[in-house]
């Protein structure tokens, strides 16, 4: 110190300067922070940050009431999934998850999530499936009301009915879940509705145009609670997208593009054939139902989605998911016209439904086109895109809005440097309840790639569970209220899908006469 302190004692000017060296540094850091904060604040003022969308996202809360007794028609993979969403799985699966969870935190979390999933206060009292093995498993699943493995205590097992006619007539069944192949949705639903059972029906609503009118009338006349199984109604990002569209964030939207991109046999409906299946273990006649007669075929039984005889093809099976998402956001209703093209270009396995399908639906009253394009042989990710004059929105489980460089609404913000043309201006990460302007490099990176890291930790709620809860709530309220995907939305969904299918099959543009409610 002697060297530094020139006078040897007391404080010199050099001491003072060296001692207070931190001051300008702190000043500079303070300036940096203030500058950043004031930029963020400006964005807030511009209304681009913190659009509070908490009110746009609704998570149904269970309505108290008595236990609802449920019958399940169709206990294959989707039926089993629906039972899980109700809180019931086969004890073997619990044991399996438990075993996997010992080495893999993903499965541990999966089992924990299932065990802590809200109890919906329902009992599975009846099941029906035309395949012995599915029915046997469903009985065990329905009995597992305590969510146990094989060692744990079981509850009362549901009764098995040989036919759906008997199941829907059973007096102790309050409500019916339909998870059959497409061609049986309406036949089962009609009988259930006429027996005054509430209905949760898998999508699409119908297999033929004619039955679509009939089921709508019967459901309305009977006054039952009806929910179509488009669980996307519970997807937060769709609800947020709806709020953004209502707030005119995108400007005038004249084109919506939705897609299906799959590239594996399972995605193309080439499912495994169960070795336990044969003519003795499958009630083939009941499976055929209203479909044209065909000799027993394991391929047709397990891969029914590949034949028009039982299926609604890409339009009914996969486009309807996309359509219902957009109907939820835009209240699209039934289009004025549809034109479709495609073919069986990859899976030349004897199927009759196309594996490539392109459809354009016109909404002249709304000044917009809804475009759908599907491939079952490429996984190139083409997400949902809503294209507005001021911004475009890319939608998955999360959501990103990009400012259009030629936007009128945002020109002023571009000029002031508050927005970057063509760059992401909002991202919505499910669970946060608000939209943030993208500020950190982390957010930019994830948002730009549409990655769903908040969903990876297993905290996300199962949308099917929420969709069932919404249906059960309406049943318990018993005040005439209907859930979000009610029979009117279901009717719009089915007719729109049929328009596309008819256009593809007949190779012509097909119109909807909204006054007469007829396809022409």
């Amino acid at each position, binding site marked *: 110190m002697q060297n530094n302190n020139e006078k040897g004692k007391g404080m010199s000017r050099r*001491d003072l300067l060296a001692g207070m060296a931190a001051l300008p540094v702190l000043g500079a850091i303070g300036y940096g922070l203030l500058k950043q904060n004031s930029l963020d604040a400006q964005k807030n003022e511009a209304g681009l940050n913190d659009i509070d969308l908490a009110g746009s996202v609704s998570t149904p809360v269970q309505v108290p009431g008595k236990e609802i007794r449920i019958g399940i028609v169709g206990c294959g993979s989707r039926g089993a999934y629906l039972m899980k969403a109700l809180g019931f799985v086969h004890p073997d699966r619990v044991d399996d998850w438990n075993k996997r969870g010992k080495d893999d935190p993903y499965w541990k*979390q999966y089992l924990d999530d299932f065990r802590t999933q809200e109890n919906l206060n329902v009992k599975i009292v009846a099941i029906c499936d035309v395949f012995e093995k599915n029915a046997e498993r469903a009985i065990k699943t329905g009995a597992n009301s305590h969510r146990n493995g094989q060692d744990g205590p079981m509850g009362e097992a549901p009764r098995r009915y040989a036919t759906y006619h008997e199941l829907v007539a059973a007096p102790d069944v309050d409500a019916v879940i339909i998870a059959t192949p497409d061609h049986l949705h309406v036949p089962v639903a009609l009988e259930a509705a006429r027996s005054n059972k509430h209905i949760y029906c898998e999508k699409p609503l119908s297999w033929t145009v004619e039955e679509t009118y009939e089921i709508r009338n019967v459901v309305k006349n009977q006054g039952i609670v009806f929910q179509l199984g488009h669980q996307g109604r519970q997807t937060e990002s769709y609800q947020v997208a709806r709020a953004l569209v209502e707030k005119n964030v995108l400007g005038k939207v004249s084109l919506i593009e939705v897609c299906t991109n799959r590239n594996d046999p399972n995605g193309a409906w080439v499912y495994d054939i169960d070795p336990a299946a044969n003519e003795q273990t499958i009630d083939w006649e009941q499976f055929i139902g209203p479909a044209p007669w065909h000799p027993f075929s394991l391929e047709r039984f397990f891969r029914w989605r590949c034949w028009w005889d039982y299926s609604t093809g890409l339009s009914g099976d996969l486009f309807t998911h996309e359509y219902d998402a957009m109907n939820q956001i835009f209240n699209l209703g039934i289009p004025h016209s549809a034109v479709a093209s495609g073919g069986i270009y990859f899976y030349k396995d004897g199927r009759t439904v196309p594996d490539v399908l392109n459809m354009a639906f016109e909404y002249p009253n709304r000044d917009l086109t809804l475009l759908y394009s599907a491939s079952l042989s490429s996984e190139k990710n083409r997400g949902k895109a809503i294209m507005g004059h001021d911004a475009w929105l890319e939608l998955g489980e999360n959501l990103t809005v990009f400012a259009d460089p030629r936007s009128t609404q945002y020109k002023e913000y571009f000029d002031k440097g508050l927005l970057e043309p063509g760059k992401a201006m909002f991202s919505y990460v499910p669970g946060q309840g608000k939209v943030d302007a993208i500020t950190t490099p982390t957010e930019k990176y994830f948002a730009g790639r549409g990655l769903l890291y908040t969903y990876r930790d297993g905290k996300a709620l199962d949308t099917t569970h929420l969709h069932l809860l919404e249906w059960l709530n309406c049943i318990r309220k018993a005040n005439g209220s209907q859930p979000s995907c009610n029979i009117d939305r279901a009717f719009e969904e089915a007719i729109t899908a049929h328009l596309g299918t008819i256009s593809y099959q007949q190779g012509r543009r097909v119109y909807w006469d909204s006054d007469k409610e007829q396809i022409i």
Partner: protein
Amino acid sequence: MTVGWHFLYEGLVKLTNPAWSSKAYLLDSGGWFSDFFFWIAHHAALLKFVDQFNALGLSLIGLFLVLGIFSRIAAVGGAFLLALYYLSHPPFPGIEYFFPSDGSYFIVNKILVELMALAVIYHLPAENRIGLRRFVLLKKKDDAE
């Protein structure tokens, strides 16, 4: 002073942004200790604590280094935090990260260099020459005389 500046700014940015979380960074961990960092990221309460501890720690360490007080303690604390960052994303061949790196590194990266800088600060505290501690030393010297 520059190390302090870096720590303080990083800390304050995190403290003033309520939405900031280390979750994505932790989930992108690799190498031998990645399970430990995943474990933190998967526990909401623990993650919140770690986030706050980290932001406050960075700010205090930065403040001490800039002011030139307690710089040896700050150097140890800073080295501890940097060691954690280093272990969560060790720059070894064969470990892939989702976030792109801002350069090419093998074993030595910027985190390690900054950690070494803190080691130097620990052994040769600059606060004796620059910063508030100079006043303390002056006072001691005056008193001794």
